[in-house]
């Protein structure tokens, strides 16, 4: 894996956004060959989305030939609800960029047949040629998407009941009223994300430090599902200093020492203007 450690949240967001930008620009997506991007929601990737929007506004990055697949969506929450992941993606990303709406895929938590919705989603990903780069976050309980502790590490897109930890963590988006937080969600499986060509996990903040420790310094374990990516050939963890607080000094020093190598991935930063 690559463990990229930046000083703070803003720098981590910027590094991640530049990496995504370079990957897309380098790929030279076209009508015959789309760049498929897996996307997360939540407070961690917010800064990264802001940066990507900036890159688009400055004319350096286009999403015209990018297909996106979000990781998850609540079950039973009206799509227009301000806390739905559809609303999040619209307000924080889609409305600011030039993506074709037909290429922005999000699981429908209000589908009549949830299981059919999940298998259809897997098929859409396959039809798109698989995911080139899946961007994700990590929960305080070490989950990727809504693959809660105990989720199979070879799971596919399905319905999951949320763990108490997750509900508590999300309560702040629902007026701190636990009863208002949805209890189920549709989520891509650990196996689904593992199938992508590359995985980038964003982890910022001290409250995620223990989860990061469990994910990369302990074994592969279905109780900390992000640990599955230890077995993926191309994983990048992008984090800030605070997220490394539970790691061994040795681990942090090693990867910080590699920053000059990591930075070659984002410097120079590429632009479609140069193509």
């Amino acid at each position: 894996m690559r463990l990229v450690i930046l000083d703070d949240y803003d720098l981590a967001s910027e590094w991640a956004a530049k990496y995504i930008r370079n990957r897309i620009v380098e790929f030279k997506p076209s009508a015959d060959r789309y760049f498929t991007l897996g996307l997360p929601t939540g407070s961690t990737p917010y800064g990264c989305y802001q940066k990507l929007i900036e890159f688009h506004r400055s004319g350096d990055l286009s999403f015209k030939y990018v297909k996106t697949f979000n990781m998850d969506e609540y079950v039973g929450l009206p799509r227009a609800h301000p806390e739905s992941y559809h609303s999040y993606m619209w307000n924080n990303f889609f409305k600011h960029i030039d993506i074709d709406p037909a290429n922005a895929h999000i699981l429908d938590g209000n589908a009549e047949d949830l299981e059919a919705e999940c298998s259809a989603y897997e098929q859409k990903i396959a039809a798109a040629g698989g995911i080139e780069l899946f961007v994700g976050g990590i929960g305080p309980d070490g989950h990727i998407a809504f693959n809660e502790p105990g989720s199979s590490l070879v799971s596919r897109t399905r319905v999951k009941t949320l763990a108490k930890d997750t509900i508590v963590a999300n309560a702040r988006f629902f007026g701190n009223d636990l009863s208002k937080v949805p209890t189920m969600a549709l989520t891509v499986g650990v196996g689904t994300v593992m199938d992508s060509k590359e995985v980038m996990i964003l982890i910022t903040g001290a409250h995620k430090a223990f989860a990061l420790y469990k994910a990369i310094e302990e074994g592969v374990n279905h109780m900390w599902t992000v640990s599955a990516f230890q077995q993926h050939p191309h994983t990048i963890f992008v984090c800030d200093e605070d997220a490394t607080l539970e790691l061994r000094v040795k681990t942090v020093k090693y990867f910080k020492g590699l920053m000059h190598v990591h930075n070659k991935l984002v410097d120079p930063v590429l632009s479609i203007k140069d193509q």
Partner: protein
Amino acid sequence: MPSNKSVSDAPISQFINCRILRGHTLQREDLWVRDGKILDPEKLFFDEQGFADRLVDCGGSIVAPGFIDVQINGGYGVDFSQPTEDVAAGVSLVAKKVLEHGVTSFCPTLVTSPPAVYHQVLPQVQVHDGGPDGAGVLGFHLEGPFISPEKKGAHPERYLRTFGSGGMEDLTEVYGGLDGVAMVTLAPELPHSQSVVRMLCQKGIAVSLGHSVANLSQAEDAVQHGASFITHLFNAMLPFHHRDPGIVGLLTSDRIPAGRTVFYGMIADGIHTNPAALRIAHRAHPAGLVLVTDAIAAMGLPPGRHPLGQQVIEIQGLHAYVSGTKTLSGSIATMDMCVRHFKQASGCSVEEALEAASLHPAQLLGISQKKGNLDYGADADLVLLDDALRVRTTYISGEEVWRKDA
């Protein structure tokens, strides 16, 4: 291009680079329009997989709902109360000109006139939507003749009336029919006014109190029966008195039925109301303030003498008097001037100033689902303004109908 056309084939406009008035604040958001209505872009994106056909760059402008003037007697030489052969032409001329002031809908107002005038004028103009030819007509505002002789202002005394029995006959005898009437101003102290107020409200016609010597109690009774507006607050009514605040007291009355608001018209031209009085009213009841121009035929014309109703008016600078007197006869300020003056005199926010000319009059007339705001589904009647609140461009149903320096 809107992709799956599951809802509509009509072209979609996206107004970008603007600050829109929504949720009582100015937000940096784009405004989407289709079929003359404000569109929900999120639904468009997810349900229809659609996007805009054309972008309209607003150049950083403020985008507000088009202004609504519920009291305007004429302008540019046209006097709505003059019984001509082609009243519609006069209304159309004014409707076209007021687009320059950001007005997208208005109520042509008739001052106290003899029945013959109402019978001739009213049938000639119907309620209709605005468009490239001019602002929309929401219906007539009939100011009089059922008003108090002691507070007639510029209205001719010989045509004032009282209610006979308080039934429909009184109204039809004077006005003819009530089709196309949006509002009636009357004095509630007139005997039998209560049944008239009820009848008008049942017909969906707003009742306004004005040109009256009513005390607070009489005014409150009228509100109980459905009255919801005060015609040009402070003018043509008893002054505020601390033991009987009169009509002015409605602003803070505790006898307003729950869920209802009493609105009040303010002529914020710097002349009809002292700024300190404007501030008192605004601070007492900000949600009810409705900016009106009460503009007369001379608005838009050079200084001199002009007819208004059955009388002659004289322009001196920004003042318009009944010729030979010092009685104010109406104003020649335009709606955008009123918005600017109101903001400057009251110290209110930009949002409040804009809502006083759009949202509040729409709420008064009960048309706020379609007009006076930029919520999804509302008519796309827009006014684009610079930071000094000067009108740059006016749109009706999403189409540009006036541009400064076009």
